[in-house]
């Protein structure tokens, strides 16, 4: 039989031992730490899973033609190939950026007219990476979605409608 007091005592003892261990680890100066004696098991949560995000944001259609017809000149080779699935003729690059982020760290690209798009790596399983994409446009509700992308493969993600016509288009590659 285990009384409630016994269980409480055990829990208190475990917490106290844990705090004592933490205090010893942090109190010890680095010079006096023997690397061989320190256990190499680092918790998984502290393991920095780095992801390099290459993002380019386009506007298409009428919005892209606001300052003249531009066609597909600003698209890269893979982007041009993927946009053959779309019916837009003009793609204007409005923002690009690259960043190395860890899990759940948002990478935000600020766009003209106070708009923005944020990409966050939510989880990863080998080459399959789940990301969250959030589009923010002034005066509108945020558009939020999660989708899987494959590492080192180009992905074109359709965004919200542009006020001038056409849509926002996010070209993303996760490495």
């Amino acid at each position, binding site marked *: 039989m285990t009384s409630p007091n016994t269980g409480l005592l055990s829990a208190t003892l475990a917490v106290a031992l844990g705090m004592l261990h933490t205090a010893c680890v942090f109190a010890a100066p680095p010079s006096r730490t023997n690397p061989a004696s320190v256990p190499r098991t680092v918790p998984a949560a502290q393991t920095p899973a780095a992801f390099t995000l290459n993002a380019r944001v386009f506007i298409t259609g009428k919005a892209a033609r606001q300052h003249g017809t531009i066609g597909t000149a600003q698209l890269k080779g893979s982007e041009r*190939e993927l*946009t053959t699935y779309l019916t837009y003729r003009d793609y204007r690059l409005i923002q690009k950026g690259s960043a190395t982020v860890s899990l759940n760290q948002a990478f935000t690209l600020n766009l003209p007219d106070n708009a923005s798009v944020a990409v966050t790596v939510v989880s990863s399983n080998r080459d399959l990476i789940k990301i969250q994409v*959030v589009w923010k446009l002034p005066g509108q*509700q*945020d558009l939020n*979605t999660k989708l899987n992308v494959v590492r080192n*493969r180009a*992905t074109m993600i359709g965004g*919200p409608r542009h006020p001038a016509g056409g849509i926002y288009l996010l070209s993303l590659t996760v490495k």
Partner: protein
Amino acid sequence: MKTQTLITQCVDSGAPPPHPALAETVAHQRALSALLRQAYAHAAPEPPQLAFLAQRVIARAHAQPQPLFARAWLAVRAFFGLHPLWAWSSASAAAALALALAILPLVQRTSAAPAPVRSFVIYQLPSGGGFIRVLEYEQTSNEETSHDQS
């Protein structure tokens, strides 16, 4: 029944009636049949029994008409059912349904979450091509989204 068949044959074939008592009826039916032929000359050919059907309709029309209220009541009963209680319950159910259909869009507009925005995602295949699939965005308030991203 036999008499009617006999008269029909006389009207159709033009033969004299076998009994002198039927002569007047046959003549009347021939006249009526001729009138109907003229009237329906542009329509389908006249069936043999048309004269007798027309006679029945005319006889019904000449019958004593019912009072206006009784006819209306019969029409209501024929429309809603046989029993007055059923008529009232049907009418109230129809009214409730109409009211619900009128209110439903208003309720949906005020209480339901905003509809998802449909878009697309194009994946690059190892072969170099791509494939496109539908992507749905949830519409969230700014506070909710910023909370999610924190």
